[in-house]
């Protein structure tokens, strides 16, 4: 029923449109269990169907809040983008620098390493041409890494860096040019 309604609206259009689509917010902790050993989390994100098919990608951005909830430890965040991965949506894969998966080698860095002070809450906005290129596949993987070189006094393991409400926003232009037939029957 929802599809029929969507179809009716779009066929009445027979036109083109600018679409802003967003993924559902994802919150992910990256726990460091051993100081000096980088910890990673691989998150799978399914792209909105609006970004698939014949679209022109205008802009793609990732917005998230980076939360360092420790009392005294500075943590460094790295964000990588991969076209391949093993994680599933809702089921991230955690690993360390000692057991990196194969896709790590081909993943593209889009942020960092960037340091976050203890007890900080920072909003990050990442835009990248690599992101725009990769967004047209149905699923992409974000690998987030946490580097702790020195634990602060009073902070116990694991030391967690949290990416809160990570949202991917895609701004695309979609031409419903294929619905030329709709324009023909409308008499326009």
């Amino acid at each position, binding site marked *: 029923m929802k599809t029929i309604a969507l179809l009716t609206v779009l066929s*009445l259009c027979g036109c083109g*449109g600018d679409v*802003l689509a967003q993924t559902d917010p994802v919150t992910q902790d990256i726990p460091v269990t051993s100081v000096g050993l980088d910890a990673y989390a691989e998150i799978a994100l399914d792209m909105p169907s609006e970004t698939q098919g014949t679209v022109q990608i205008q802009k793609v951005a990732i917005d998230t809040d980076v939360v360092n909830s420790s009392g005294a430890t500075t943590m460094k965040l790295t964000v990588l983008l991969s076209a391949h991965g093993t994680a599933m949506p809702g089921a991230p894969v955690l690993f360390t620098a000692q057991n990196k998966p194969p896709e790590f080698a081909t993943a593209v860095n889009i942020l960092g390493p960037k340091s976050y002070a203890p007890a900080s809450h920072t909003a990050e906005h990442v835009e990248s041409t690599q992101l725009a290129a990769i967004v047209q596949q149905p699923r992409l993987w974000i690998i987030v890494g946490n580097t702790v070189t020195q634990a602060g006094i009073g902070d116990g393991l694991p030391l967690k860096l949290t990416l809160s409400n990570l949202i991917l926003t895609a701004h695309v232009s979609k031409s419903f*040019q*294929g619905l*030329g*037939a709709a324009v023909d*029957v409308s*008499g326009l």
Partner: protein
Amino acid sequence: MNRWILSLLLFAPIAGATTDGRLLSMDSGEVIDRTTLGLQRSAVALPAGFAIDTSLIGDLALAANLGVRWAMATGPHHVAIGARYTQFFGAPVYSSAIAMLNPTVKQFNPSLSGPSAYAAYGIHLGQLSLTVEGRYEHLYYDAAGLNVGGSLVLGGNWWLVAEVGYRFFGQVPLHASLGVRFTGEHFGLALGATYTGYQDPQLPPLPVLPALDVFWCFG
């Protein structure tokens, strides 16, 4: 009025068949000499073969449009040329509708504004009428097409209509429509289907769209 109803029921042939200048999904090239109220075309007839027209379907879909048409007939031949400008006002409405149906989409700004023009030549050959139409549109995208339509008398005022055409630049190059038309003295209708071949990851495959036209001529 009674004669009209009777003819509609008995499909008796009537002189001065009515037209709104449309077949199923293309222009018919015929002269519009009476004020017409129709879905695919509503027109006010002006002297010397001119007419001001609008597509009611477009207007109802919030794509307000206004066009000018000139047509002439000599013997079995008739030609028409026309142009139209469309201004889309429905962006907020469609955006809300899409956002309601699909929460992933935060904003949808459709656009269907721009000029379009067409020229058609037709010929009546007894039971068969043929029309060739060339059209060009610049509505968010460029589209141009060449269509050929044929109408064959089925009986009385009923016609079988088939159209085939080619779209330049389009994603779907084939234009094909099939249906029937009825043209009475004051009333006419066209019913059929047009091939779309539209594929989109968001929607189920849409092979055809209905082609519908209903019109009344006054005067």
